[in-house]
């Protein structure tokens, strides 16, 4: 299969309980392609609902801490889904503890991106990771 070009639609689910962080993430994802569709969820329950109702999902970007609960719950839901179990999932967090990153990998996350000191660096890192994951999925 050839790599996707910019004309192909992408359906991405972005989950973050902080509206400002969600906006920073969305601005980064929109730079990937003008024909990208982003589903937004501001908590665990809306995220679960979005996954169950979606007819198509190409990638998920999930914050590790959602309203004091673990975003890994949403990751588990994606990995159990009959159609979306193998899609790339990127976990993001302001915390960069090695233990947390290891747990994300163990539960099936494809990548971990740190919401680094500079939001611009976070956005650039997120874009690079998503591009790599999407092109790998297509190959």
């Amino acid at each position: 299969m050839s790599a996707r070009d910019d004309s192909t639609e992408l359906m991405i689910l972005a989950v973050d309980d902080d509206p400002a962080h969600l906006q920073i993430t969305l601005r980064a994802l929109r730079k990937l392609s003008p024909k990208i569709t982003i589903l937004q969820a501001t908590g665990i329950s809306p995220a679960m609902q979005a996954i169950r109702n979606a007819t198509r999902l190409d990638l998920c970007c999930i914050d590790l801490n959602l309203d004091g609960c673990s975003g890994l719950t949403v990751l588990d839901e994606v990995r159990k889904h009959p159609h979306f179990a193998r899609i790339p999932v990127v976990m993001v967090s302001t915390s960069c503890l090695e233990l947390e990153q290891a747990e994300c990998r163990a539960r099936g996350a494809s990548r971990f991106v740190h919401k680094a000191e500079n939001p611009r660096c976070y956005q650039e890192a997120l874009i690079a990771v998503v591009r790599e994951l999407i092109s790998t999925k297509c190959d």
Partner: protein
Amino acid sequence: MYYSPLVTILDHPRTVRGLLAGCALIFVAALGFNPLSWTTLICALILGTVCGLYLARSSLTKLLSPSSPPRPLAEMHREQAEARTTLQQYASLVDNLAAAVVIRNEAGKIVYCSPYTEVLTGYARTEMESRTDDFFLQIVHEEDREKLQRALQINISGEPFQFRCRYFHKSGIEMWYETRTVPVHSKGGTFLFSLSITIDVTATVRSQKQLEERNKDLQDFTYMVSHDLKAPIFTLKGMVGVIKEDLGATLPADAVETFQHIDRAAQRLEQLVGSILEYSRVSIQETKSEEVELDQVLNDVLNDFTVQRESCKATIEVASRLPRVVGERIKIYQIFSNLIGNALKYRDAGRPLRIEISEKPQRFSRVAQIAVKDNGSGIAPEKVPALFRPFQRGATHVEGLGIGLACVKKLADKLGGKVEVQSELGVGTEFLVTLRRAAPSLSTLCE
């Protein structure tokens, strides 16, 4: 009074038989000549005595030998009195020891408990000594029962055994005791009895648990700081970035400057949060104990500062032979890295920076003191007392947060050492780092 050799001779059965036999023979022989003659009788007695002495010659030899002189009775009495005094002293020691002494016989039965056993357990000694099973198995915590049973097998294993257990005092309070049990054998190797000495370590264990809880609280706090404080800082900086991106071209100059202030404040806040995290990590981390070559550590630190040294043309001299110390290598590295980094940062712009690192002779050989001396800008005397507190700065003309020296002090404390400072404004500063000295190696002793 000496025992008379004559009494000893006559006590010897062989001597008496010899005498009698000798006399009888001579008497019978004399009968043949003149049975009633006094001369005959005297001769019989003399010859009989000679025969007896001959038969008892081995006993006589022992008596007269210089290697076994007879012992005076007074000396024996004195030795017995000394033995009684020693026994009284040991009995007094055991009775007054703030530790429970328990003796078990070869069958494992408790035959003796010292008075302090009653204090530790709340039970009477008679109660402990009268049981057929081991009393302590009745009061030990269920989870520690196996440890105690292993100790009670001491007469089989023949090895000393030390362990810590929970017991229930008669009052119901859970206590922690540390016990050392040793087997006692005769000279021939036969097991005689086992001796257990137990002390109360409840206060120590409870302090340790409190310390663990405080560390856990600190870890939770660190995690909270790591995430919950960083999140709004990320928002601040992110939103400023969004505004600049969307409206940057249309913003008036004063609005741009305002957002720059917000950006700088967010940066500063982020650095402060990072410093708090770094300081609390130093507090939480466990410290390993190993022997560290200071020469190698300083070499690594200087290598890591190569670029900064060359850019400011600093000279750093390290003494030819620094001591080996006891501590954790990474923490010792952090101490000297902070100090040398500070010296480079707070140098005097008017002269080339010179840093000297050497060992200061110490009165006590158990510690080593290393001096890091520079000719930098120095520290004002009013700032010195609070220099090692977090967020205190010796000088403000250079960017910094004031957490480095607080970390140095915390690290030195954790290594069982300390750090001190002497400084003169405009002249320079000397930091004195005291660490535990490692025992000399065999090669050093042979030099």
